[in-house]
């Protein structure tokens, strides 16, 4: 989808733009540097707290739409007990979301909102969140491989606004009606986008592709896995290097699994909480009888890859289950992260 409108912004006005956007919402979540220097997405009070000079954050901003831990409802004891909703309100802006994470949000939208059952917890948070993307063209992280997953370095859809540094200007693209309304409020800061900006954007994409270090031939891996041609020994080899820590799925912006648990609070009320879970963990499928259909790490390694890469899952869930963000490359102790596993699958060894 082509952008609805394009503007140019001198970098000196970026802070003003940020201020103006902040005024439109109740809360802004933006990348911010935390000692000793890691970047996390968190609530910020002003533009000086925002860090834009980073590759990618270890934790995806998706965590602000699908919370790592979230209250589902509250039960007040009594005869009979009463059930009350939990939830937050207010409009929120996610600032400087990377295109890969935006693609992940696209898959989460499909997964949580479409089909027979609509996840109202996700839906409520999603509906009151504006998304401002930050394209990566000049800042490839050595671990990323978005070009292999067709998710970057620019987002082509799914954003309200998208910022990118092209030469000595920011290009501001409008991707939705809400984005257009936001841009309108900042109209005095913006200038019309000259044609060389669009040309510069296209050139940047080419240079970006050429410079990517991490490569993963995802289509080949998808074909091979879907044809069931992967020998079982391959999963054994992956499993022998996997510690079963679940890190890959916890940092993955596409992963959606959760478990639920009841917490009894001091005032006697009971809150059902859901928290991210991982198919790489041994207890994930263990039944009360003790039977565990995926007792072996090998089976769990296969499950993880199958859900992300096999055609039937891609068909069902709308897109490839990997957006090439490179986070699992950062966390996997065993070095059996997605680009490596995709390569092993493709080669069948």
């Amino acid at each position, binding site marked *: 989808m082509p952008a609805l409108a394009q503007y140019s912004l001198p970098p000196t006005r970026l802070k003003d733009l940020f201020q103006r956007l902040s005024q439109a919402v109740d809360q802004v979540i933006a990348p911010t540097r935390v000692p000793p220097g890691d970047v996390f997405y968190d609530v910020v009070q002003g533009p000086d707290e925002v860090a834009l000079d980073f590759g990618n954050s270890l934790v995806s901003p998706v965590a602000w739409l699908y919370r790592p831990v979230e209250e*589902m*409802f509250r*039960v007040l*004891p009594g*005869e*009979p*007990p009463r*059930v*009350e*909703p939990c939830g937050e309100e207010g409009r929120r802006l996610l600032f400087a979301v990377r295109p890969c994470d935006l693609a992940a949000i696209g898959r989460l939208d499909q*997964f*949580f909102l479409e*089909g*027979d*059952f*609509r*996840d*109202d*917890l996700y839906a409520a948070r999603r509906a009151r969140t504006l998304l401002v993307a930050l394209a990566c063209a000049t800042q490839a992280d050595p671990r990323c491989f978005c070009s292999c997953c067709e998710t970057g370095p620019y987002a082509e859809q799914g954003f309200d606004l998208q910022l990118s540094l092209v030469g000595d200007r920011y290009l501001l693209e409008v991707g939705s009606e809400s984005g257009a309304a936001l841009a309108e409020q900042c109209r005095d800061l913006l200038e019309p986008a000259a044609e060389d900006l669009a040309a510069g954007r296209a050139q940047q994409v080419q240079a970006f592709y050429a410079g990517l270090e991490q490569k993963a031939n995802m289509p080949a891996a998808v074909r091979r896995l879907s044809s069931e041609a992967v020998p*079982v020994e391959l*999963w054994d080899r992956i499993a022998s290097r996997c510690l079963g820590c679940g890190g890959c799925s916890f940092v993955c912006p596409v992963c*959606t*699994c*959760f*478990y*639920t*648990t*009841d917490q*009894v609070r001091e005032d006697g009320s*009971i809150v*059902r909480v*859901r928290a991210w*879970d991982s*198919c790489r963990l041994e207890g*994930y*499928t*263990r*039944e*009360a*009888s003790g*039977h565990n*259909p*995926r007792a072996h790490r*090998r*089976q769990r390694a*296969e*499950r993880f890859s*199958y*859900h992300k890469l*096999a055609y*039937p*899952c891609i*068909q*069902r869930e709308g897109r490839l289950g990997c957006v090439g963000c490179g986070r699992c490359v950062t966390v996997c102790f065993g070095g059996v992260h997605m680009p490596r596993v995709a390569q092993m699958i493709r080669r069948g060894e």
Partner: protein
Amino acid sequence: MSGLYVPQIAAIERVEEETATEKTFTLRPLNGDRLSCVPGQFILLSVFGRGEAPFCVGTAGQDLPTLDITVRRYPGGRVTEALHSLGPGAYVGLRGPFGNGFKVEALRGRDLLFVAGGIGLIPVRPLIRQVLSERDQFGRLVLLFGARQPSEILYRRELDEWQAREDFEVQLTIDVPHPDWSGHVGVVTTLFPDLEVDPARTKAIIVGPPVMYPFVVAACREKGIGDADMIFSLERYMKCGVGKCGHCAMKHKYVCTDGPVFTYEEIREIEEH
């Protein structure tokens, strides 16, 4: 209030002890809601403060004012142990029913071979009840039921009634000899050699512990029953019942929303290594 994960409050109306480890609970939604359930569907039951767990509906039909579930208690089980300590008048949470359930239409006109092991009889019972209530719609009816010991046989009274019928062949077996047992001894597949079936007419409905499945599949195949005519109800660890938590997934299917009832032909496609 409503919401995908928010249970409605129900009161326990009656508790019946089935065995030392299983009880049947009759639940009545407080708001007077009536429930429509297909045999093979399940609900998610909350014991507030302990958690939520799936249980098959024991009662099927339209606009039911109450609903039965039969629950095995697992020592240390968060929900099942707490539920077993509750009596009439206690409040629980209820979501559902969920899942596809058995397609009774596809069974009409056929001979039905029910094979159940242990608490596998729980989801099969409402199906048998429905079939018996429209007995002339079906061909020959056979139930092979196996339990580990006599004391673990569920629904004793109802089984006796079924056994007394001329139009329903019911065979029980226990796994190992027991002083209180004069009937057949051996796992449920040991009842197969003496069984005669017309494979072209037969649909097998098979529910039991996972260890039972490969043996029953082999025994059914030996009788000439096709993979599409073997119908299973699967159990997987479940946390949501609505295709979101991921726990019950097998390949690209979710047992909670695409199942729990599958033909063996369908299962072959989603079986994992």
